[in-house]
């Protein structure tokens, strides 16, 4: 799965720490999601979408082999 979390975060002018605090996770989790090393749960995805004022589908996209 691919995501545009970093781009959306920068669009909102948020640091990784700020975004992490807004969705109640660690900065390490945000880093891991941005680097595609970790796939967030539905709950976290919805929280991220709400904070970034985007739809979940606009941030997270399935790849062909998913």
């Amino acid at each position, binding site marked *: 799965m691919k995501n545009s979390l970093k781009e959306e975060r920068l669009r909102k002018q948020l640091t990784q720490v700020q975004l992490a605090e807004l969705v109640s*996770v*660690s900065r*390490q*989790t945000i*880093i*891991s999601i941005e680097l595609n*090393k*970790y796939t967030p*749960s539905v709950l*976290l995805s919805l929280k991220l979408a709400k904070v970034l004022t985007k739809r979940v589908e606009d941030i997270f996209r399935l790849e062909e082999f998913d």
Partner: protein
Amino acid sequence: MKLLLPNRFKKTGAVIAPLGFAIWLLMQSGYISEMLTHIVGEPNSSTVILFRVVNAIIGTISFLSFLGGIYFVSFSREKIEDEMVQRTRLDSFQFAALVQIIFTIAGFLFMIIVGEPKDAGLMLFFILSILLFWLSFIGRFNYILHFKLR
């Protein structure tokens, strides 16, 4: 998860586990008895009980410290407990279970081919099997969290 200890226990466990294990190894290798020999002299009919009691106490306390330390390290919260940490913890438990099963199967096959170990060999095998589970869990959990996901 309500079973987890506060994060401060992790550092305590990281200190007492290796310390307890090192002291237990020293006891097993006879170093404690050697030290007692320097203090009270060679064991005789009146002091042999002292040697046994001291070794038993030190051995028990040190091994329990080792086990307690492993418990503290394994069951302490991370500074920030979020879903990624919890998922990594679950994955690490699965990995540790797999490692233990493979070790147990390999051990039993070895015993079938070579023969059952003498004396306390079988007990040592089971103790190693249990320790391998917890050491695999601790190793994998910390590796994933502090190296792979950075």
